[in-house]
Protein backbone atom coordinates (compact mmCIF):
# COMPACT_ATOMS: atom_id res chain seq x y z
CA UNK A 1 0.00 0.00 0.00
CA UNK A 2 2.70 2.37 1.03
CA UNK A 3 4.96 1.60 -1.92
CA UNK A 4 2.01 1.74 -4.30
CA UNK A 5 1.11 5.17 -3.07
CA UNK A 6 4.62 6.47 -3.54
CA UNK A 7 4.80 5.11 -7.08
CA UNK A 8 1.61 6.82 -8.00
CA UNK A 9 2.92 10.06 -6.59
CA UNK A 10 6.16 9.83 -8.54
CA UNK A 11 4.57 8.99 -11.90
CA UNK A 12 2.05 11.77 -11.54
CA UNK A 13 4.86 14.25 -11.01
CA UNK A 14 7.01 13.12 -13.93
CA UNK A 15 4.29 13.01 -16.59
CA UNK A 16 2.84 16.42 -15.79
CA UNK A 17 3.90 19.33 -17.99
CA UNK A 18 6.46 21.59 -16.35
CA UNK A 19 4.66 24.81 -16.86
CA UNK A 20 6.71 27.22 -14.78
CA UNK A 21 9.61 27.53 -17.20
CA UNK A 22 7.24 27.81 -20.14
CA UNK A 23 5.44 30.70 -18.48
CA UNK A 24 8.75 32.34 -17.66
CA UNK A 25 9.72 32.15 -21.30
CA UNK A 26 6.38 33.48 -22.50
CA UNK A 27 6.52 36.37 -20.08
CA UNK A 28 9.95 37.38 -21.31
CA UNK A 29 8.80 37.21 -24.92
CA UNK A 30 5.71 39.28 -24.15
CA UNK A 31 7.74 41.95 -22.38
CA UNK A 32 10.22 42.12 -25.24
CA UNK A 33 7.45 42.43 -27.80
CA UNK A 34 5.69 45.09 -25.77
CA UNK A 35 8.90 47.10 -25.74
CA UNK A 36 9.11 47.06 -29.51
CA UNK A 37 5.40 47.65 -29.90
CA UNK A 38 4.34 50.38 -32.24
CA UNK A 39 0.81 51.47 -32.68
CA UNK A 40 1.32 52.68 -36.23
CA UNK A 41 2.73 49.50 -37.62
CA UNK A 42 5.27 49.96 -40.35
CA UNK A 43 4.24 52.60 -42.81
CA UNK A 44 7.33 52.33 -44.91
CA UNK A 45 8.05 49.11 -46.62
CA UNK A 46 11.65 48.42 -47.23
CA UNK A 47 12.55 47.81 -50.82
CA UNK A 48 14.77 44.86 -51.63
CA UNK A 49 18.55 45.27 -51.69
CA UNK A 50 18.24 48.77 -50.36
CA UNK A 51 20.23 49.58 -47.25
CA UNK A 52 19.13 52.74 -45.53
CA UNK A 53 21.76 54.81 -43.76
CA UNK A 54 21.76 55.05 -39.97
CA UNK A 55 20.81 58.31 -38.42
CA UNK A 56 20.06 59.80 -35.02
CA UNK A 57 16.77 61.15 -36.32
CA UNK A 58 13.75 59.96 -34.39
CA UNK A 59 11.05 61.70 -36.40
CA UNK A 60 8.45 59.11 -37.23
CA UNK A 61 7.09 58.81 -40.73
CA UNK A 62 3.56 60.18 -40.49
CA UNK A 63 1.39 59.39 -43.43
CA UNK A 64 1.70 57.46 -46.57
CA UNK A 65 3.06 59.60 -49.34
CA UNK A 66 4.36 58.85 -52.75
CA UNK A 67 7.45 56.76 -52.28
CA UNK A 68 10.56 57.01 -54.36
CA UNK A 69 13.21 54.40 -53.73
CA UNK A 70 16.65 54.56 -55.25
CA UNK A 71 18.69 51.39 -55.02
CA UNK A 72 22.01 50.82 -56.71
CA UNK A 73 20.39 49.31 -59.79
CA UNK A 74 16.85 50.64 -60.07
CA UNK A 75 14.72 53.62 -59.15
CA UNK A 76 11.25 52.71 -58.02
CA UNK A 77 8.10 54.73 -57.48
CA UNK A 78 5.69 53.06 -55.07
CA UNK A 79 7.61 49.82 -55.49
CA UNK A 80 7.26 49.81 -59.28
CA UNK A 81 10.56 49.98 -61.16
CA UNK A 82 10.73 53.12 -63.25
CA UNK A 83 14.21 53.75 -64.52
CA UNK A 84 17.60 52.03 -64.09
CA UNK A 85 19.97 54.01 -61.90
CA UNK A 86 22.62 53.61 -64.57
CA UNK A 87 20.53 55.77 -66.92
CA UNK A 88 20.35 58.47 -64.27
CA UNK A 89 24.11 58.47 -63.92
CA UNK A 90 24.39 59.03 -67.67
CA UNK A 91 22.64 62.39 -67.49
CA UNK A 92 25.50 64.86 -67.84
CA UNK A 93 26.69 66.24 -64.53
CA UNK A 94 27.20 69.71 -65.94
CA UNK A 95 23.47 70.00 -66.46
CA UNK A 96 22.35 72.64 -63.98
CA UNK A 97 18.77 71.44 -64.05
CA UNK A 98 18.83 67.67 -64.57
CA UNK A 99 15.46 65.99 -65.06
CA UNK A 100 14.93 62.25 -65.07
CA UNK A 101 12.30 61.99 -67.82
CA UNK A 102 10.65 58.71 -66.87
CA UNK A 103 10.57 59.55 -63.19
CA UNK A 104 9.08 62.93 -63.99
CA UNK A 105 6.26 61.33 -66.02
CA UNK A 106 5.49 58.91 -63.24
CA UNK A 107 5.51 61.60 -60.55
CA UNK A 108 3.38 63.89 -62.66
CA UNK A 109 0.80 61.11 -62.89
CA UNK A 110 0.88 60.82 -59.08
CA UNK A 111 0.57 64.56 -58.73
CA UNK A 112 -2.37 64.66 -61.13
CA UNK A 113 -4.03 61.98 -59.05
CA UNK A 114 -3.64 64.10 -55.94
CA UNK A 115 -5.05 67.10 -57.77
CA UNK A 116 -8.03 65.01 -58.77
CA UNK A 117 -8.54 64.04 -55.15
CA UNK A 118 -8.48 67.69 -54.13
CA UNK A 119 -11.07 68.45 -56.80
CA UNK A 120 -13.30 65.70 -55.47
CA UNK A 121 -12.83 66.93 -51.95
CA UNK A 122 -11.03 63.92 -50.56
CA UNK A 123 -8.02 66.02 -49.71
CA UNK A 124 -7.84 69.59 -48.49
CA UNK A 125 -4.85 70.65 -50.46
CA UNK A 126 -1.82 69.14 -52.04
CA UNK A 127 0.88 68.95 -49.41
CA UNK A 128 3.66 68.04 -51.79
CA UNK A 129 5.02 65.42 -49.44
CA UNK A 130 7.21 62.69 -50.77
CA UNK A 131 9.16 59.95 -49.09
CA UNK A 132 12.54 59.20 -50.55
CA UNK A 133 14.40 56.05 -49.67
CA UNK A 134 17.94 56.05 -50.92
CA UNK A 135 20.48 53.30 -50.55
CA UNK A 136 23.38 54.51 -48.45
CA UNK A 137 25.91 53.74 -51.14
CA UNK A 138 24.24 55.79 -53.85
CA UNK A 139 26.25 58.85 -54.79
CA UNK A 140 25.08 62.42 -54.34
CA UNK A 141 24.80 62.94 -58.09
CA UNK A 142 21.86 60.51 -58.35
CA UNK A 143 20.26 61.93 -55.22
CA UNK A 144 20.50 65.45 -56.57
CA UNK A 145 18.89 64.50 -59.87
CA UNK A 146 16.04 62.76 -58.05
CA UNK A 147 15.54 65.73 -55.74
CA UNK A 148 15.56 68.12 -58.64
CA UNK A 149 12.99 66.07 -60.52
CA UNK A 150 10.72 65.77 -57.48
CA UNK A 151 10.95 69.49 -56.85
CA UNK A 152 10.13 70.32 -60.45
CA UNK A 153 6.98 68.22 -60.35
CA UNK A 154 5.84 69.94 -57.17
CA UNK A 155 6.88 67.59 -54.41
CA UNK A 156 8.81 69.99 -52.22
CA UNK A 157 8.61 68.45 -48.80
CA UNK A 158 11.00 65.59 -48.85
CA UNK A 159 11.21 62.95 -46.20
CA UNK A 160 14.37 60.94 -46.36
CA UNK A 161 13.90 57.54 -44.83
CA UNK A 162 16.69 56.45 -42.50
CA UNK A 163 17.26 53.66 -40.03
CA UNK A 164 16.90 54.94 -36.55
CA UNK A 165 19.96 54.11 -34.53
CA UNK A 166 18.84 52.27 -31.41
CA UNK A 167 19.76 54.26 -28.37
CA UNK A 168 20.58 52.34 -25.27
Amino acid at each position, binding site marked *: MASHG*RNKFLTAKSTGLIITSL*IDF*FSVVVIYLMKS*YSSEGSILTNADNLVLPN*SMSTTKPKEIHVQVAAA*NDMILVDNVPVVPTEDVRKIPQEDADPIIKKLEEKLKACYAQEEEMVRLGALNKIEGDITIQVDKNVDFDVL*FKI*MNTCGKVGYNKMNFAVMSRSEE
Partner: protein
Amino acid sequence: MGQVARKPMVDPGAGHGGDIDLKPFINFLVVLIPVLMLSAEFAKISVINLKLPEGRGSQTSQAVKAPPKVDEEDKLLLTMIITDSVVTLGAKNGFLPSMFYKEFHKYVSRTDRTVELTSEVDPANPTKPVLNPKTGQAFEISERQDIFLYVCDENKNVVKCMYTKKDNLMLTSADGVPLQSVKGGDTVYTTTNPRKMIIVSNPAEYEPRPLSAYDEMKNKLLKIGERYKEAPDREDIILAAENQVAYDKIVQLMDVAREAGFPNLSIAKLRG
Protein backbone atom coordinates in the same frame (compact mmCIF):
# COMPACT_ATOMS: atom_id res chain seq x y z
CA MET B 1 6.47 5.08 6.17
CA GLY B 2 2.79 4.64 5.99
CA GLN B 3 2.23 8.18 7.12
CA VAL B 4 4.44 9.58 4.39
CA ALA B 5 2.49 7.74 1.72
CA ARG B 6 -0.83 8.68 3.14
CA LYS B 7 -0.19 12.36 3.35
CA PRO B 8 -1.42 13.23 -0.14
CA MET B 9 -4.27 10.77 0.19
CA VAL B 10 -5.56 12.36 3.36
CA ASP B 11 -5.64 15.85 1.98
CA PRO B 12 -5.94 15.46 -1.77
CA GLY B 13 -7.27 18.91 -2.44
CA ALA B 14 -4.45 20.80 -0.72
CA GLY B 15 -1.85 20.37 -3.48
CA HIS B 16 -4.12 21.10 -6.45
CA GLY B 17 -6.34 23.64 -4.85
CA GLY B 18 -3.33 25.65 -3.72
CA ASP B 19 -1.89 25.93 -7.26
CA ILE B 20 -3.28 28.48 -9.65
CA ASP B 21 -4.78 26.96 -12.76
CA LEU B 22 -2.29 28.24 -15.31
CA LYS B 23 -4.00 26.98 -18.45
CA PRO B 24 -6.08 30.10 -19.17
CA PHE B 25 -3.04 32.24 -18.55
CA ILE B 26 -1.04 30.25 -21.06
CA ASN B 27 -3.86 30.47 -23.56
CA PHE B 28 -3.87 34.20 -23.09
CA LEU B 29 -0.11 34.45 -23.61
CA VAL B 30 -0.27 32.28 -26.71
CA VAL B 31 -2.82 34.66 -28.21
CA LEU B 32 -1.00 37.78 -27.05
CA ILE B 33 2.34 36.86 -28.56
CA PRO B 34 1.18 36.70 -32.20
CA VAL B 35 -0.79 39.93 -31.76
CA LEU B 36 2.23 41.76 -30.42
CA MET B 37 4.49 40.21 -33.01
CA LEU B 38 2.31 41.60 -35.79
CA SER B 39 2.56 45.12 -34.50
CA ALA B 40 6.16 45.03 -33.32
CA GLU B 41 8.69 46.95 -35.29
CA PHE B 42 12.09 45.45 -35.26
CA ALA B 43 13.87 47.88 -37.52
CA LYS B 44 12.90 51.41 -36.67
CA ILE B 45 12.59 53.58 -39.73
CA SER B 46 12.42 57.30 -39.25
CA VAL B 47 12.61 60.24 -41.59
CA ILE B 48 14.64 63.38 -42.09
CA ASN B 49 12.55 66.28 -43.27
CA LEU B 50 13.88 68.59 -45.87
CA LYS B 51 11.83 71.39 -47.32
CA LEU B 52 12.77 72.89 -50.61
CA PRO B 53 11.76 76.39 -51.56
CA GLU B 54 8.60 76.13 -53.60
CA GLY B 55 8.52 76.60 -57.32
CA ARG B 56 12.05 75.58 -57.97
CA GLY B 57 13.74 72.31 -58.51
CA SER B 58 16.27 72.49 -55.75
CA GLN B 59 18.63 74.86 -54.14
CA THR B 60 21.58 75.08 -56.45
CA SER B 61 24.88 76.84 -56.16
CA GLN B 62 23.41 79.94 -57.74
CA ALA B 63 21.16 80.25 -54.76
CA VAL B 64 24.20 80.29 -52.52
CA LYS B 65 25.85 82.99 -54.55
CA ALA B 66 22.73 85.13 -54.84
CA PRO B 67 20.81 84.84 -51.60
CA PRO B 68 17.66 86.84 -50.95
CA LYS B 69 18.36 90.50 -50.38
CA VAL B 70 16.70 90.86 -46.96
CA ASP B 71 19.15 91.86 -44.23
CA GLU B 72 21.94 90.22 -46.04
CA GLU B 73 24.58 91.85 -43.90
CA ASP B 74 23.64 90.02 -40.72
CA LYS B 75 23.21 86.65 -42.30
CA LEU B 76 25.73 84.00 -41.63
CA LEU B 77 25.11 81.82 -44.70
CA LEU B 78 26.82 78.90 -43.11
CA THR B 79 27.82 76.25 -45.59
CA MET B 80 29.21 72.83 -44.95
CA ILE B 81 31.22 71.52 -47.84
CA ILE B 82 32.12 67.95 -48.51
CA THR B 83 34.23 66.66 -51.37
CA ASP B 84 35.97 63.35 -51.78
CA SER B 85 38.93 64.36 -49.62
CA VAL B 86 37.94 67.47 -47.68
CA VAL B 87 35.23 68.65 -45.33
CA THR B 88 35.09 72.26 -44.36
CA LEU B 89 32.85 75.08 -43.30
CA GLY B 90 32.28 78.31 -45.07
CA ALA B 91 30.29 81.40 -44.22
CA LYS B 92 29.75 84.83 -45.62
CA ASN B 93 33.09 86.10 -44.44
CA GLY B 94 35.25 83.25 -45.61
CA PHE B 95 36.20 79.68 -45.11
CA LEU B 96 37.73 77.76 -42.26
CA PRO B 97 40.87 75.84 -43.18
CA SER B 98 40.02 72.65 -45.04
CA MET B 99 39.90 69.46 -43.05
CA PHE B 100 41.52 66.68 -45.02
CA TYR B 101 40.26 63.25 -44.23
CA LYS B 102 41.16 59.68 -44.90
CA GLU B 103 38.31 57.39 -45.67
CA PHE B 104 37.99 53.92 -44.18
CA HIS B 105 35.34 51.43 -45.16
CA LYS B 106 34.17 48.64 -42.95
CA TYR B 107 32.90 45.58 -44.72
CA VAL B 108 31.02 42.70 -43.19
CA SER B 109 30.54 39.59 -45.27
CA ARG B 110 26.94 38.74 -45.97
CA THR B 111 27.42 35.00 -45.85
CA ASP B 112 29.63 34.92 -42.78
CA ARG B 113 28.96 37.72 -40.32
CA THR B 114 32.22 37.10 -38.49
CA VAL B 115 34.32 38.17 -41.46
CA GLU B 116 35.03 41.86 -41.00
CA LEU B 117 37.48 44.11 -42.70
CA THR B 118 38.20 47.78 -42.34
CA SER B 119 40.31 49.10 -45.14
CA GLU B 120 41.51 52.49 -46.20
CA VAL B 121 40.21 53.87 -49.45
CA ASP B 122 42.84 54.77 -51.96
CA PRO B 123 41.98 58.33 -53.04
CA ALA B 124 43.53 57.73 -56.45
CA ASN B 125 41.39 54.69 -57.11
CA PRO B 126 38.30 54.81 -54.92
CA THR B 127 36.46 52.04 -56.74
CA LYS B 128 39.23 49.50 -56.25
CA PRO B 129 37.61 46.26 -55.04
CA VAL B 130 38.27 45.17 -51.48
CA LEU B 131 38.91 41.45 -51.12
CA ASN B 132 37.22 39.25 -48.59
CA PRO B 133 40.07 37.77 -46.53
CA LYS B 134 38.34 34.42 -46.26
CA THR B 135 37.06 33.72 -49.75
CA GLY B 136 39.41 35.96 -51.73
CA GLN B 137 36.53 37.45 -53.66
CA ALA B 138 35.76 41.14 -53.79
CA PHE B 139 33.20 42.51 -51.36
CA GLU B 140 30.01 43.78 -52.90
CA ILE B 141 29.15 47.40 -52.33
CA SER B 142 26.07 46.43 -50.34
CA GLU B 143 28.31 44.66 -47.83
CA ARG B 144 29.82 47.98 -46.83
CA GLN B 145 28.57 48.61 -43.32
CA ASP B 146 30.20 51.84 -42.28
CA ILE B 147 32.16 54.69 -43.67
CA PHE B 148 34.64 56.29 -41.28
CA LEU B 149 36.24 59.61 -42.02
CA TYR B 150 39.37 60.37 -40.04
CA VAL B 151 40.97 63.78 -40.01
CA CYS B 152 44.60 63.85 -41.14
CA ASP B 153 47.25 66.54 -41.07
CA GLU B 154 49.34 67.96 -43.94
CA ASN B 155 51.60 64.90 -43.87
CA LYS B 156 48.61 62.60 -44.33
CA ASN B 157 48.91 61.21 -40.81
CA VAL B 158 45.67 60.47 -39.04
CA VAL B 159 45.14 62.85 -36.12
CA LYS B 160 44.36 61.30 -32.75
CA CYS B 161 42.13 62.72 -30.11
CA MET B 162 40.95 61.61 -26.69
CA TYR B 163 37.62 59.81 -26.60
CA THR B 164 35.62 58.35 -23.76
CA LYS B 165 35.85 54.59 -23.94
CA LYS B 166 32.26 53.99 -23.04
CA ASP B 167 30.22 56.34 -25.21
CA ASN B 168 32.84 57.22 -27.82
CA LEU B 169 32.49 60.93 -27.16
CA MET B 170 35.17 63.28 -28.32
CA LEU B 171 36.83 65.40 -25.64
CA THR B 172 37.87 68.99 -26.05
CA SER B 173 39.24 71.72 -23.85
CA ALA B 174 37.06 74.61 -22.71
CA ASP B 175 37.64 76.54 -25.93
CA GLY B 176 36.96 73.58 -28.19
CA VAL B 177 40.44 72.34 -29.01
CA PRO B 178 40.65 68.54 -29.40
CA LEU B 179 42.63 67.03 -26.53
CA GLN B 180 45.68 64.85 -27.09
CA SER B 181 45.93 63.53 -23.54
CA VAL B 182 44.12 63.72 -20.24
CA LYS B 183 45.27 63.31 -16.67
CA GLY B 184 43.41 63.04 -13.40
CA GLY B 185 41.80 66.28 -12.26
CA ASP B 186 41.56 67.81 -15.75
CA THR B 187 38.37 69.54 -16.77
CA VAL B 188 37.30 68.43 -20.21
CA TYR B 189 34.23 68.97 -22.37
CA THR B 190 32.35 66.58 -24.60
CA THR B 191 31.09 67.48 -28.05
CA THR B 192 27.46 67.10 -27.22
CA ASN B 193 24.92 69.86 -27.50
CA PRO B 194 25.11 71.49 -25.00
CA ARG B 195 28.67 70.64 -24.07
CA LYS B 196 29.01 68.56 -20.98
CA MET B 197 31.78 69.23 -18.51
CA ILE B 198 33.66 66.25 -17.13
CA ILE B 199 36.26 66.31 -14.42
CA VAL B 200 38.59 63.43 -15.12
CA SER B 201 38.82 61.11 -12.16
CA ASN B 202 40.10 57.97 -13.81
CA PRO B 203 42.28 58.55 -16.90
CA ALA B 204 41.85 54.87 -17.84
CA GLU B 205 38.30 55.64 -18.93
CA TYR B 206 39.65 57.63 -21.85
CA GLU B 207 41.83 56.64 -24.72
CA PRO B 208 43.21 58.24 -27.87
CA ARG B 209 41.29 57.28 -31.01
CA PRO B 210 41.49 58.53 -34.57
CA LEU B 211 39.67 61.84 -34.76
CA SER B 212 36.47 61.42 -36.74
CA ALA B 213 35.77 64.19 -39.21
CA TYR B 214 32.11 64.10 -38.17
CA ASP B 215 33.02 64.76 -34.53
CA GLU B 216 35.41 67.54 -35.42
CA MET B 217 32.75 69.07 -37.65
CA LYS B 218 30.28 68.96 -34.80
CA ASN B 219 32.83 70.59 -32.54
CA LYS B 220 33.34 73.41 -35.04
CA LEU B 221 29.62 73.87 -35.56
CA LEU B 222 29.09 74.06 -31.80
CA LYS B 223 31.71 76.78 -31.61
CA ILE B 224 30.08 78.71 -34.43
CA GLY B 225 26.66 78.28 -32.87
CA GLU B 226 27.93 79.70 -29.58
CA ARG B 227 29.63 82.62 -31.24
CA TYR B 228 26.92 83.71 -33.69
CA LYS B 229 23.85 83.55 -31.50
CA GLU B 230 22.59 86.83 -32.93
CA ALA B 231 22.59 85.86 -36.59
CA PRO B 232 19.07 85.81 -38.08
CA ASP B 233 19.81 82.53 -39.85
CA ARG B 234 21.51 80.87 -36.92
CA GLU B 235 19.55 77.68 -37.44
CA ASP B 236 20.20 77.42 -41.15
CA ILE B 237 22.93 75.52 -42.82
CA ILE B 238 23.61 74.62 -46.41
CA LEU B 239 25.22 71.33 -47.15
CA ALA B 240 27.15 71.41 -50.40
CA ALA B 241 28.40 68.13 -51.76
CA GLU B 242 30.34 66.95 -54.74
CA ASN B 243 28.82 64.51 -57.19
CA GLN B 244 30.57 61.34 -56.13
CA VAL B 245 30.00 61.74 -52.38
CA ALA B 246 28.07 58.77 -51.00
CA TYR B 247 24.60 59.41 -49.57
CA ASP B 248 25.65 57.87 -46.27
CA LYS B 249 28.15 60.67 -45.63
CA ILE B 250 25.51 63.27 -46.38
CA VAL B 251 23.11 61.73 -43.90
CA GLN B 252 25.84 61.59 -41.26
CA LEU B 253 26.66 65.25 -41.82
CA MET B 254 22.96 66.13 -41.65
CA ASP B 255 22.90 64.39 -38.28
CA VAL B 256 25.93 66.34 -37.15
CA ALA B 257 24.34 69.62 -38.20
CA ARG B 258 21.08 68.83 -36.46
CA GLU B 259 22.77 67.79 -33.27
CA ALA B 260 24.90 70.92 -33.24
CA GLY B 261 21.77 73.07 -33.42
CA PHE B 262 21.35 73.76 -37.11
CA PRO B 263 18.11 71.99 -37.95
CA ASN B 264 17.17 73.92 -41.09
CA LEU B 265 19.08 72.09 -43.74
CA SER B 266 19.29 72.77 -47.39
CA ILE B 267 21.26 70.82 -49.88
CA ALA B 268 23.36 72.31 -52.61
CA LYS B 269 25.55 70.94 -55.29
CA LEU B 270 29.18 71.80 -55.55
CA ARG B 271 30.33 72.37 -59.06
CA GLY B 272 33.85 71.45 -59.91
